[in-house]
Each structure stands twice: as C-alpha cells, then as structure tokens.
C-alpha cells in the first residue's frame, strides 16, 4: 500500500507507566507481586515463630512438601488455560499410588525378588503410564464426546477414589522399595552437598547461556533488545535464587546418628566432636524442578503449547486455523494424568506406604496453586512458573501455621480466605491493566 493515513497514536503508547517499563523488559509484573507476597508470608511467619520458619530445616521440608502439588499444578495450568478443569487429580493420585504399591510390594518381588535395582524404575514408568492412560481416557470423553470437563472429572473424583479402595479392599501397602523411597525425600532422598553444588552451577550456566543465546538471536534479526542492565539483573536474580536454594539445602545437616552410620559404612571413623554432613537438595524437589522446566519448554517453545494457549484464547479461531483442537485437548488431559503419576510416586515414597486416602483434597490445592499463580479460569492465561510459585505460597501458609501452632480448622479457614482474596486482587489488577 502506498498511501496510508497515519493512525492517531493510541493513548497507551503515550502514557508510560511502571508496568509499561516492566513490559518493555519483558518482566511480568504479576510475578513480582507473587514473589513479594511470598516474601511477606515468609518474613511474617519467621517473626511469629522466632526465626524457626526461615531455618534451613524448615525451608528444606517446605520445598519437599511442595513438590507433589507443584508437579500437578504444572499440568493444571494447561488444563485451565484451555478453559477446562480437572477435579479428579487427587483421586487419581490415590488410585495410581495404590496400583504402584501393589505392583511394587506384592507383584514384582514375586517376579525378581525384593530390592531389585529395576523395581523403582518400573514403578515410576508404570505410574506415569497408568496416570497418562486415565487422563487420556477422561480427555477423550471431554474432547470427542463433548461432555463438560467439570462433569467428567467430578465423576473421575468418585470413580478413582473408589477404585483406589478396590485395589486392596482398603488395605495399606508398605513398606516401599529402598531405591523408590528417595523420590519422596527424607534422608535417603537428599543428594548431598557436592552434587547439589554441581546442579546449582549447571543451572546458573544454563540461565546465563539461554539469556545470551536469545539475545544474540534477537540481535541478528535486528529487533529491539532489552536494556543490558535488565538482562543482567534478570539472570542475576535467577542465579541468586538457585545459589540461595543450594546453600539452604547444604546448611541443613543430617541427624548425627544417620551421619555416623553413613561415615562408618564407608569405613571411616566418627570424630569425637561430630561431623557436619549436608542434606543437599532433595530428590522430589529436583523432580518438580525438572518437570517445571520441561513443562515451561513445552508451553513456550513447542507447537503443542502454542496450540493450548490459542485454544484457550479462542477455540473457534484455533480450529479455523487448522489446529486439531480435540486432539490437543485430549493430550492436555493425558499430560495432566502423567504428571499425577509422578506426584503419586512422590507422595507414596514420602509416606513409605500406599494408602487409599492418599491425595485426598489435592485437586483443590492444585487448582488453588494454579489460580494463585495467575492462571485465569476464563482460559488463555497462565504460566508454569506462576503455578509452581502458587504451590509454594499455599504450602508456606500451611507449614507456617503448623509451625506457629494454629488450630487445624483455622488453617483451612485461612487458606480458603487467602485463595479468594488472591483471585480478587488478581482480577482488580487485570481490570486496571486492560
């Protein structure tokens, strides 16, 4: 077109607020709000508990307790982004956990005996496969038979809880395989200080490398670049969080008795004054971290993720653009199920037992985590990192209240109120933005 009338500049382009500046450096202001809320909660509980909350021991346990919900929240983000909901995750966790327990404790030992080195791997693969299958099944009902997800998964909530009981007629199965137990954390599930530092350094290198790679690519295309200070600040914040977490995990010492056994098992002698041996990062936390990174990659860098968000924004548009919306929807539920499988392993291993009540009410915590983390129930909006932070906020509230001795009924009341207020504040913020 040769002749074009200049369009009047829109008011948004002229007015420059703080959030515009933040957007320019591509930093989500809501993420800052979440981190600030977390800081307030942590500092508040630390003050109320006379410094016990921010101890290495408490934080280490807090992260371990968050892992299971955080893993499932990653999947729930995608489910909610497509304008759906999954109410069955808690029951599915119970069912998958029971089946894994049964196979691991009663079936596999009959095949290759107790404590076989492959038992834990078979268990994990089975859990992911079974969870994925259950999810795909529910997804097929939702996508191809057009039954509302609320109904399908409400049915699933009852069906899978019942099925969990059915597996062993309500019996609890224990104990778990010793190579499986580290998935739940505990002393066996901590990787020690050296490995923790190695992972921490690798993560820092990855953060800086990715930032540099993206910047070089944008430069080659001649796009506007973030200011260098912002780039460095963001990378530094990321690396700082990683290093702080590693230092925290390493500051939490193994109990003397266990440390002593460990030293003596390696043929060493236990020194007179005791020895400081670090826990290091916990396996379930690393699993959750890996899931979070993989899911972020899937959501941001793969076609599948792009389709999930497009469907959430406008299902009809996605379909008219040639996206197979039904298949994508079914796969989203399948993915949710596979993540439930991972969480089932984490919680079964942590409990060192499979019980049919495992995962009770988890669906509500998972949904709450995703929503507090900025996932919009209207669909189309949400981030994996936000949901994981949301899970951490929820768990911080609960752990903190336990620590300062709040009565159990009051804990639920507080969590419920916080959820409602968080969503209200998010709505207010969103309205001001648009």
């Amino acid at each position: 077109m040769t002749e074009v009338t200049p369009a009047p500049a829109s008011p948004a382009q002229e007015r420059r607020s703080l959030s515009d500046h933040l957007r320019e450096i591509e930093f989500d202001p809501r993420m800052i709000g979440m981190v600030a809320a977390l800081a307030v909660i942590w500092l508040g509980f630390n003050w109320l508990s006379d410094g016990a909350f921010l101890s290495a021991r408490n934080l280490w346990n807090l992260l371990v307790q968050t892992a299971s919900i955080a893993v499932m929240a990653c999947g729930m983000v995608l489910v909610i982004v497509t304008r759906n909901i999954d109410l069955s995750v808690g029951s599915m966790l119970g069912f998958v956990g029971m089946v894994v327990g049964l196979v691991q404790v009663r079936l596999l030992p009959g095949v290759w005996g107790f404590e076989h080195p492959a038992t834990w791997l078979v268990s994990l693969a089975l859990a992911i496969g079974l969870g994925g299958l259950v999810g795909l099944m529910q997804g097929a009902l939702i996508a191809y038979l057009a039954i509302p997800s609320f109904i399908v998964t409400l049915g699933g909530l009852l069906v899978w809880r019942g099925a969990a009981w059915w597996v062993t007629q309500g019996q609890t199965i224990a104990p778990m395989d010793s190579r499986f137990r580290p998935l739940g954390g505990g002393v066996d599930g901590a990787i020690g200080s050296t490995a923790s530092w190695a992972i921490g350094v690798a993560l820092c290198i990855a953060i800086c490398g990715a930032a540099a790679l993206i910047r070089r690519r944008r430069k080659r295309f001649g796009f506007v670049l973030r200011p260098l200070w912002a780039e460095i600040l963001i990378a530094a914040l990321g690396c700082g969080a990683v290093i702080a977490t590693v230092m925290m995990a390493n500051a939490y010492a193994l109990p003397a008795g266990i440390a002593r056994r460990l030293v003596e098992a390696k043929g060493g002698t236990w020194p007179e004054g005791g020895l400081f041996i670090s826990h290091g990062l916990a396996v379930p936390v690393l699993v959750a971290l890996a899931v979070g990174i993989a899911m972020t990659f899937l959501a941001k860098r793969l076609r599948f993720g792009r389709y999930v968000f497009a469907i959430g924004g406008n299902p009809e548009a996605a379909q008219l653009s040639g996206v197979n919306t039904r298949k994508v929807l079914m796969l989203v539920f399948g993915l949710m199920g596979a993540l439930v499988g991972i969480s089932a392993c984490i919680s079964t291993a942590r409990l060192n037992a499979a019980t049919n009540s495992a995962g009770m009410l988890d669906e509500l915590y998972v949904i709450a985590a995703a929503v507090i983390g900025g996932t919009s129930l209207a669909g189309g909006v949400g981030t994996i990192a936000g949901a994981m932070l949301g899970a951490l906020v929820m768990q911080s509230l609960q752990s903190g209240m336990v620590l300062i001795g709040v009565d159990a009924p009051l804990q639920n009341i507080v969590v419920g109120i916080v959820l409602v207020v968080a969503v209200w504040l998010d709505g207010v913020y969103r309205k001001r933005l648009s």
Partner: protein
Amino acid sequence: MSIAEPADIRDTHPGQGTPLIEMRDISIAFGGIKAVDGASIDLMPGEVVGLLGHNGAGKSTLIKILSGAYRADSGTILVNGEEAAIASPRDAKRHGIETIYQTLALADNVDAAANIFLGRELLTGWGTLDDASMESETRKVMGRLNPHFRRFKEPVKALSGGQRQSVAIARAIYFNARALIMDEPTAALGPAETRQVAELILQLKKQGIGIFLISHDLHDVFDLADRITVMKNGRVVGTARTADVTQDEVLGMIISGKCPPAAVAGPGALRGA
C-alpha cells in the same frame, strides 16, 4: 426446479479459461433447514466476485464450506478445474484458499506473530518454535499492510479494531493465497481503514488472486467487484457483471429475488419475473 448450468454462469466471465474456484450444486442443511440449497458459484483468477444477500441468505455458510469450516451435504468444489476434497480448514489452506472471517477469528491472548502463523508455525532445526523468524516475517508483512503497527509483543486483545483487521488480513495473504474469502472485511472499520482495505483488494487483484467479497454494503461491492452473485433463502438468485446492472436492480434481486435481464438467473430467481 432446475439447476443453473455451469455453462450459463461462464457466459458472464470477464475472460476465458478455467475458473480458479468453482462450487457446483452445493447443499447443506442444519437440523432440517436447508441453509444452502443447490448453490453454484465460481471465481476467476484476478477477479473480485461480490456475494450479496440478506442475513441468513446462506452466503456465509456457502463460503464456510469453501474454507473448510463446514462440510457440504452434497455438491463438488473444483480448484483450477480439478475436484478438491475440502474437509477441514487445513485442506482449504492446502489448496491456497485463505479466509478473513467476519469475527476475524483471532486468538486474543497471543501476539500478532502467533496468530499469523497459528497452525503453520515456523520451526527451528530442533523442532521448536522459531519465534524470532516468525516475528521478523510478521514485521515484514505488517509493514506492508499497516506501516504504523508497532505492538508486536502484545496480545492482539490490546490492539485497535483496524490493527486487528490488519493481523487477520496478514494471516490470509502471507501464505501466498490463490483465492481469498473476505467476509464483511470492513464491517468494523472506520472510513480511512475501509479505504485501505479497498486499495489492498485492488492490489491483490493485480497479483492474480481471486477474491470472494461478502458484504452488506452495496457501494463497496459495486466499487470493487467484477461480478455479483446474489443469494436468497439459501439459493442463488442470479449472477451478473457489475457493469451490466444497476444498484436498484441488484437491490431488487436481494429483496424480492427478481432477476434483471442482464443477469443469469439461478435456481433461486423469482419465477415468471
């Protein structure tokens, strides 16, 4: 009721040769109601055909069959003289048929590049989304359509009506369309933006792209279309060269189904008129 012979329609062609698109005897019913009933239309390369009719006349439905959104109950679609099976939007795009929907069909929560390449993303060698390339291509094509457009990073929800329209048009023309369907392309636009769309249509016409233009606005259609096809109650009333008919005559076709002498009557024409 007789069905218009394709030969009759060809008489009104501006030139000779194989039509780019030919829809023959298309019918579709929703719950017993025949939304389109034995409709035949065609389109030559570099031609603009205006499709007119009241709301519910069946023009949008007919066009959605061509773009793959609906499947016809009966009838055939020919692209360059060869029968084309169009069962999905993907099939239509494979045949070079692109559509700008009245609703624009944009995913509001993602940016312009994600919308333009939705379903046809550019990938890196690793199989991941190549956002940098897509943004770069988006800058090029948007630069042609709307040189003042700067908001590449924002979700299209934040854009003005005209900017959103530009994104929808960019998505249709970026992939070298042979035939373009524009469903009420100027309904949401101001006068300046409407003129821009008109200029774009003329420019695309010069490149040999055939365009179906669906509109309520008789003036628009008379200014831009080479031929006009009028539909009423799911049937084609008639087809005429724009130069051979007056606006009053076309209005008569739309309102009463009366086919003027210069037009080739279709199955929906008023009998004995």
